[in-house]
């Protein structure tokens, strides 16, 4: 099986790769969003600590 044959999926390439691609996109972006959310949460906690110290 050649690479082109593999990607064409017997003429159904568009349907198969749209499905696989969306699944990959959704799952990777979920991880990415959670990681950046964690970063901003930790910054937020640091800000709270500074505020409470200055009071």
């Amino acid at each position, binding site marked *: 099986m050649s690479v082109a044959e593999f990607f064409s999926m017997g003429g*159904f390439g568009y349907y198969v790769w749209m499905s696989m691609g969306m699944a990959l996109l959704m799952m990777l972006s979920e991880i990415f969003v959670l990681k950046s959310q964690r970063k901003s949460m930790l910054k937020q*906690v640091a800000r709270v600590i500074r505020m409470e110290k200055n009071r």
Partner: protein
Amino acid sequence: MKINWFKYAAPSTFYPLAGKIIPFFAWSALLLIVGGLYWGFFQTPELLSDQKQYYRILYVHVGSAWMSMWLYIVLVAWALIGLVFNTRLSYMMAMATAPTGAIFTFLTLWTGAFWGKTSWGTYWDWDPRMTTELILLFLYVGYMALQSAIDDTRRSDKASALLALVGLVLIPVIFWSVNCPDPNQCAALHQQSSMSNIEPNIRIAWLVTAVGFWMFSFMVILMRVRNIILDRDQHTSWVQGLDEVRK
């Protein structure tokens, strides 16, 4: 040996524990999903030659569909534990489950549309299975919207838990919308689920990918609940004393 489960119901004990087990779920998710898809794409060429290649959509579709329903049951279980025992962590777990459930529901509909176009000639139809799955997506979104619409966390936790509990009636409807006892009575476009008479190699790819999705759900839900704990407990001394917080 007696384990004190309530000890782990405290966010301060659960937070580090969750952090420790996340890598385990991350690696098993990666291995299972890659392995399942590898099997499905490269070990089934003679089964899925020519016109049948669109069957590969189902490797993602089946796992997503199972997770979309299963995660709703998990969400309701956490909400129920929260309502009965009034434990803060269970509400946070319910809240952390919803977005992942919504994502899998969306993926089910999306991959189902592409499957439908190839096998039934249409992206969408108001067939019982598709319609109820769409309502499930609205339920997840409704739960999240209600949760974020009420400022007081105790109230928002309880109100959204009740909404989730009422929505549970939908799950058996989704399940039996294609698996009804008398097939003549449901005029569904969607195929009946047939785990037993599917080709073993394809079934392996389905199952392994689905378990991979389950491990993925564990990972992201634990990641999200840790973020929620940080948010809700930001004024406590244990969060402020964490090593990862830069003071």
